[in-house]
């Protein structure tokens, strides 16, 4: 008598999961399978695909441009993530204080995040141009330099500029999250510490930082994954130049696929980077499960 309802009850989770599994299969698993399959083929746009085994991976590992893009990606992620998190946290601490004009500053702080990407990049390119850029004009007029600085044509400065742009564009989101975290700290703990004579530094070290530690961990991991896949800002700012100095995985793979029309090699690049992004995603998930 009770068996039909039992079957229904046991099926319910699967039924509820079915749409997600279907969506995930169509939009994640299948394309991923195609990508992995493509990475073992020589495939140019408009030409038939030829199975070449591991040759694409071998080509990539011997390619100085690809090796450089690995190191560029590491520098880009490390630089952008660490500077952005520290800057965002520092700003959140300031904006959490009772300062005059706080709502205005909080609003202004969001501007870089709200500015559409293309105008933002073009404005940066215009500001930094050694030919007609306002920054070089200013530096020359203030006699801080005797020669216009080529921010995007020098390999080190170009890397720094790409990192600076990424930090500038996305810090508001992180500041907002940190602000929310800071506002969740019970006021009475802070007040009790003050009564006990705790300095600002001690409050930061022993109350604030432990409270937002989890936020730091989650934002760090998310930020690393997002920055690793960042394409638009790097492409629009430098297109990976000068001479591969700012090429990341994403821009180099795009170049291979859409400028050199070599889909097999581009797929192999993504397959190489896949374990890193999957690893980071697993770490985030495990951390969140553990915390919950």
């Amino acid at each position, binding site marked *: 008598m009770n068996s039909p309802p039992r079957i229904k009850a046991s099926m319910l989770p699967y039924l509820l999961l079915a749409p997600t599994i279907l969506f995930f299969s169509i939009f994640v698993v299948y394309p991923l399978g195609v990508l992995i399959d493509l990475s073992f083929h020589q495939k140019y*746009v*408009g030409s038939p695909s030829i199975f070449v085994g591991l040759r694409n991976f071998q080509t990539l590992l011997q390619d100085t441009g690809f090796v450089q893009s690995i190191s560029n990606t590491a520098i880009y992620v490390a630089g952008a993530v660490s500077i952005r998190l520290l800057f965002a946290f520092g700003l959140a601490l300031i904006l959490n204080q009772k300062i005059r004009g706080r709502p205005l500053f909080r609003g202004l702080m969001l501007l870089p995040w709200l500015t559409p990407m293309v105008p933002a990049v073009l404005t940066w390119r215009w500001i930094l141009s050694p*030919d*007609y850029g306002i920054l070089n*004009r200013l530096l020359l007029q203030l006699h801080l330099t005797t020669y216009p600085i080529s921010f995007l044509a020098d*390999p080190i400065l170009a890397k720094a500029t790409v990192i600076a742009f990424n930090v500038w564009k996305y810090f508001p989101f992180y500041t907002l999250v940190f602000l929310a975290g800071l506002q969740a700290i019970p006021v009475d703990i802070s007040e009790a510490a003050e009564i006990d004579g705790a300095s600002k530094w001690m409050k930061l070290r022993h109350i604030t930082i432990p409270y937002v530690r989890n936020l730091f961990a989650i934002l760090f991991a998310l930020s690393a994954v997002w920055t690793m896949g960042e394409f638009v800002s790097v492409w629009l700012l430098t297109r990976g130049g000068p001479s591969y100095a700012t090429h990341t995985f994403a821009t180099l793979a795009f170049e291979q696929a859409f400028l*050199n*029309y070599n889909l097999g090699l581009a797929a192999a690049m993504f397959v190489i980077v896949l374990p890193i992004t999957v690893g980071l995603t697993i770490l985030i998930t495990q951390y969140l499960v553990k915390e919950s």
Partner: protein
Amino acid sequence: MIKSRHAITRLQGTLVVVIVIIAAIAGGAYYWASQPPPKPPPSPPPKKLTVWWSTPVFAKEKELIPKYIDQFKAATGAEVEWVQFPHVELDQKIMTAVEAGTNPDIMFQAHQHVCTILHEKGKLLSLTDVIDKIDRNDLFPFLQQMAKGRDGVEYFLPYYPQGNWFHYRKDLLAKAGYSKPPETLDQLLEMARKINNPEGGLYALGFPLGSTTINDAPMTFEQILWAYGGQLVAADGKTVMINSTATMQTLEFFERIIKIDKTQTPAALTWGAYDNNAAFQQLENIAITGNPGGTIVSWIRDNNPKLYPNVGTAPWPKGPSGKNYLLLGAMGFSIFKNTKNPELAKDFVKFFCDKTRYKELVMATIPYNFPMYKSMLTEPALKDPPMWEMISQLLDENIEKRLWGYATGPTGAVSEIYSAEIFARMIERVAVWGWTPRRALNEGFIAIRDIYAKWLAA
């Protein structure tokens, strides 16, 4: 009684049957008569063309193209879907669509190399009958060569021909004491040293040289390479000739202007497709530049009338080869083989090549493009001095006209070399990473040799 009753009943029955039959016949006749006449078979839906077009630049052009499309639709009864893409995006859209099998019927491409690659992969229709129908004898000979693939098939109609022009600012040269542009590369180097004043915000040279320029850098590279007497490949299309003294001298020329004399703006290594125009047009930042297409002159004509008389165009300076060269390219039409309406697609291209329409359209884009018909170069509108300095080079027999990818012109291999920016990569190796020209050339040569090997094997 029973019998008689039975007889009446039979009579009645017969009557009923007759009445029923008559009623059925009458009803059937009425039904048949009341039916509407049979419908003629449905007419086939109008034929449809999809045309992808590199976004027009000029207002008049934007007005004329839809007008002509409407006229074509009215004349043929066909439907035409006209889709515009910025030219830097169209290449990627086309390639992606080809891979997905969703390509348009016709493309109007700013970059011929995409058409060349697709032709060598067997994706494009022969346009020989289209070119035969328009006035073939009035087409410049170099355009007829440009239309052909290495198999001799005409797959591309070079509708908007363009030169790779050498521009200079007359006022800035005059300030430095020069009344005319440099005639040789040595004069160019000397003049550049004298004009250069980066502390004052002026670089003498602004050639697009980085791998980010989308075709501008390889064209500049070839111009200088030819001046030194070099070339990419022999006329047989098989013998790679880039590993030469002339290429070494070309790389040393770029090394000199970027690293030794510092007369070339370093920003040019990361310029996009439009930045050299911006640098030359906006302020007094660049005295000399090179640019495929006459965008600089046309923009200044339309937006900065004061500057317009100060913009000069001269032949590219001679090198040790002792000759002037002008590199030519074109924007144009190709038709995909998998179109469902090949004849209609050809009619569309022919419709746009009609001389009356063509003249109106191409004159709206002068001097960005020049006419494909020789007879139109005599138009009075072209005699405006800044424009005529460009156009007259086409008629000057002392200037040798060459197609990009000399000595074969566009082929699949040349297109990939342009697309992969091999020439610009060599310059960047020298300018950014401090490689010697020899080392940069070795790397570039291997890449070019491999590309040729791949295409020749295909």
